[in-house]
């Protein structure tokens, strides 16, 4: 479904040159949920931005459904791939009602039946009709993220890119949104690419996980490996230890990679 092969991203020139993503490759099968984990600055969100088309200074190859993507995307691409952003406080237009936000993609793609589509997708993400004409500032963080999910779904994509979809949310809301995403994936048989720094989120959501550090893929593991702790690379092991919470002794033994 989605194939990334030897993807490289370089920002800047000369002394400021920053090779943010180095030779990253992975394959996501149809209906699979794929996770990208790593620390801040590991290049995981950059990979996502290349796939979505927000960044164009990459080289290598990205294929969707066997067709290689160019730097400039045709309008049909957006029917296939959609994205949910990290911060629900910044990803909704402050002067547009929820209704207007959701109708915009329908207008761009000239889909018709705008009212029915909006009603359907709102109920799918668990928001009642009373939310439809509210402005984003009248919603909570979790509700806003549901709207962001609804906006991604309204074009009926096959692949949804999730950029840390819960890290800006309250812990109590995180599980709610993650369960919603799981449910939608099952119902619509979607393919997910999830970026997160949170191993718990990734092991809950993803079948296959790619661990990244400083722009490189450290290893690709599956969920069982993460749960049993059978990991080849010491970096991954360290990340797993770190994700279990603060431990003085463990931190003293950490190395830089």
């Amino acid at each position: 479904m989605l194939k990334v092969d030897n993807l490289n991203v370089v920002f800047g020139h000369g002394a400021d040159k920053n090779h943010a993503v180095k030779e990253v490759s992975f394959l996501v099968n149809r209906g699979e949920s794929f996770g990208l984990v790593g620390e801040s600055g590991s290049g995981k969100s950059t990979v996502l931005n290349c796939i979505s088309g927000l960044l164009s200074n990459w080289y290598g190859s990205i294929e969707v459904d066997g067709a290689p993507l160019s730097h400039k995307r045709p309008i049909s691409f957006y029917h296939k791939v959609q994205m949910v952003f990290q911060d629900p406080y910044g990803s909704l237009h402050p002067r547009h009602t929820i209704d207007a936000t959701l109708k915009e993609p329908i207008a761009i793609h000239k889909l018709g039946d705008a009212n029915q589509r909006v009603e359907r997708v709102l109920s799918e993400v668990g928001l009642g009709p009373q939310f439809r004409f509210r402005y984003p500032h009248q919603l909570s963080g979790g509700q806003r993220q549901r709207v962001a999910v609804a906006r991604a779904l309204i074009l009926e994509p096959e692949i949804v890119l999730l950029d840390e979809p819960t890290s800006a949310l309250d812990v109590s809301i995180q599980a709610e949104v993650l369960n919603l995403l799981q449910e939608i994936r099952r119902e619509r048989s979607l393919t997910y690419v999830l970026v997160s720094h949170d191993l718990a989120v990734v092991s809950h959501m993803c079948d296959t996980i790619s661990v990244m550090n400083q722009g490189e893929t450290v290893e690709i593991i599956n969920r069982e490996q993460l749960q049993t702790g059978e990991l080849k690379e010491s970096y991954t092991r360290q990340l797993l230890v770190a994700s279990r919470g603060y431990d003085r002794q463990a931190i003293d033994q950490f190395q830089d990679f």
Partner: protein
Amino acid sequence: MSQQSPQMNGTKAWLLTDTPGSAFQAASGRFYLGLLDFFRNRLAVVGLLIIVTLVITALFAPLIAPYDPVAANLANRLQPLSADHWFGTDELGRDIFSRIVWGSRLTLYVIILVAIIAAPVGILVGTVAGFFGGIIDTVLMRITDIFLAFPKLILALAFVAALGPGIENAIIAIAITSWPPYARISRAETITIRNSDFIRAIRLQGAGPLRIITKHIMPLCLSSLIVRVTLDMAGIILTAAGLGFLGLGAQPPSPEWGAMTSAGRSFILDQWWLITMPGTAIFVVSLAFNLLGDGLREVLDPKSDS
């Protein structure tokens, strides 16, 4: 739930509901809250009242003015304030009150036309430059800089001198000189908005630059632009009056306030009302626009709500 009842309580509830039933209701509720905010600012309301008075005066000038504003009556020249001539008469015996009432039309005409010409040009240049960046930004902003480099009145003087005196040419000259600050403001706003997630999100839904600029960026630039235009109105009135004063704006006998002050300045010691009355009118209207602009800034400031 969304029934509009004739009682105040019903309407208020309809406006302030947390669960609006239509886009219109949501927008009305938002507008109502803005209005409440605005009316909390006394000075801004005073400014608004003065401007409403100005508009009404301009609309009903023939009914309000007791005399013909241009008909000279030399037997009656330079009369002081009296019950017949509230603001006295000028050097040709024309009633100054009537001239000020008719002059409000010219003032409104100038500021409306300048706003209609300059604001859209400014916002268009600014958002396009800010959104695309690169060479387009450089070219558009250097042109803007050239216009900004000249003092407004001097540049307007040059244009009027080239185009010939007259109120229409004065309007064109003022419009040409007043768009660059609007372009600057819109560009600055656009650059802060351009990389926000909601613009990325709409780009990922396949929106083209035209749609992004007009439907997503411009509405956010509009509030600061409206405030700036309102505050500039005072300056526009003064520039128009200044051109009139220098004899390059409205031509005699039209009752333009600036031209009236200019004509009255040779009588300033003995017949003070000739220059004081139109001067006060200019002052009051400019002040009103400044007060209104300040009030609007408090309501429309994009940072005040998320």
